[in-house]
């Protein structure tokens, strides 16, 4: 029975031309779906001539202008700097606190309530509070990013550690592994698989926190530029900058995914 299934799976993997075509057809259709959306956008943009729906080509033209004037690249660098600091900080705090919460019931009992409450609380309302502590420095925006990211990382890491097969831990212990070894050699690698799901979510949240923080607190970076054109109700430029932000988010997300594949290759 099992060998028949394995054989079937092997044939499927090795696959004839049909198997090769299948994933291609999937991505071809997704590409067509996107292209269709762009065509519809362009058509409705011209047909309806609404002030809030400029045709796609106008948005692209606006994007070209913004890049040429240097408004995009300079501000992108400013934004990314706070993003890197904020995300790294969240990563360290999120993985450590999450691991402790997942491993030790006492830690979970002590701070679980706060983590869960803050996970579901809107982050931007904390901006005035961060402002009280850090004023107009970069740290206010970094704190907003951390508030956006850190709690989802903590929760995901804690879940990851908690759902690690207890039999593995038992076995390691019976072979004389110390608590430290169990933590570093078993729990951490095993939880990496699930924790990465959180990290991927976290990167997306970090980009949103970065933009929203810049829009609300200090009018710098990409968020500052988009806020500027937003207050002039310049839809083409707002959409052009949104495209840039989208690309940033997608590139970072893909990078995390690639890292995920590299680090968790042993799991296949």
């Amino acid at each position, binding site marked *: 029975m099992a060998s028949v299934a394995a054989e079937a799976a092997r044939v499927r993997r090795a696959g004839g031309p049909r198997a090769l075509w299948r994933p291609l057809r999937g991505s071809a*259709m997704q590409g067509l779906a996107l292209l269709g959306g762009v065509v519809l956008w362009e058509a409705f943009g011209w047909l309806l001539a609404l002030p809030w729906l400029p045709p796609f080509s106008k948005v692209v033209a606006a994007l070209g202008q913004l890049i040429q004037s240097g408004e995009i690249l300079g501000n992108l660098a400013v934004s990314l700097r706070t993003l890197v600091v904020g995300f790294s900080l969240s990563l360290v705090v999120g993985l450590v606190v999450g691991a402790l919460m997942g491993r030790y019931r006492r830690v979970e009992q002590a701070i679980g309530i706060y983590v869960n409450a803050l996970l579901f609380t809107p982050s931007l309302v904390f901006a005035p509070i961060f402002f009280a502590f850090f004023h107009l420095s970069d740290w206010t925006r970094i704190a907003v990013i951390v508030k956006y990211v850190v709690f989802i990382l903590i929760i995901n890491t804690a879940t990851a550690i908690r759902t690690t097969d207890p039999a593995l831990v038992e076995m390691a212990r019976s072979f004389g592994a110390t608590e430290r070894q169990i933590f570093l050699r078993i729990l951490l690698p095993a939880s990496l698989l699930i924790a990465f799901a959180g990290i991927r979510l976290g990167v997306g949240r970090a980009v949103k926190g970065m933009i929203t923080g810049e829009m*609300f607190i200090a009018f710098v970076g990409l968020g500052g530029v*988009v806020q500027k054109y937003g207050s002039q109700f310049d839809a083409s430029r707002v959409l052009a900058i949104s495209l840039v932000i989208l690309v940033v988010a997608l590139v970072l997300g893909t990078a995390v995914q690639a890292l995920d594949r590299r680090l968790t290759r042993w799991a296949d």
Partner: protein
Amino acid sequence: MKAAAAARKSRREEAIAAWRLRIVVFALFVAVWELSARRMENLLIPTFTEMVGGFVRLVFVTGRVWEPLLISNQALVLGYLLSVVMGIPLGLAAGRSRWINRLMNPYIGLVLAVPVAPLIPILITALGLGLASRVVLVVLFAFIFITVNTRAGVRNVDPSLIEMAQSFGANEGQIWRKIVIPGAVPAIFAGLRIGLGRAIAGMVIVELLLVATGVGRLLLEFAGRLQADLVFATVFAIIVEAVVLVTAMQVVERKVAPWAHDVALG
């Protein structure tokens, strides 16, 4: 019998220990806040007691928080209901049909990745400064998480169950009612919970960034007048609302689908 009683007793002791720990941690947090705020003497940072005083005034004495909360929550309720009505069917369709999923998948990725906040001015050009803009914004924040989780739930339904039902002559409607939807319910509830959190975020963000009304406006007013105790108290009130709503959702979840707890956030 004896073993069961002993287990019950140790569980009770465990629960008491957990609560003792929680109270100690809370007391420690309050003490650190109170003392450090007093030492800093920063105009923008109230002590814990000042914050509590502000909260009591806002909620019970002057009641200033209620009307803004009511205004904000109109957008939340309408937007969240719309998100549920949109999000679940989209997720079900994408989960069950490969063709629909292929059409939707790139857009789901886009909507998940794009920050909504910059689009608020466009929304306002289209719909004006009224309730409609705020409702649509809440939908833009929330529905995608409901859709994605619903899709994941449908996909996780064991296909052999569906095959078996088909081979016993079940029609598509029966398969939906008896297998697909019950199997997807845990993930759907996880999505509803995450979506609720995002909806609350959307409700506040639009008020803070562009449409000055509701609790967002209240917060900005207090911040502008440097009334730090009231700023912190308003933030606390928003936290309380979020926690109450999400907890209520969890209670409903346990009632409606008791088998559906402990789904990891997706």
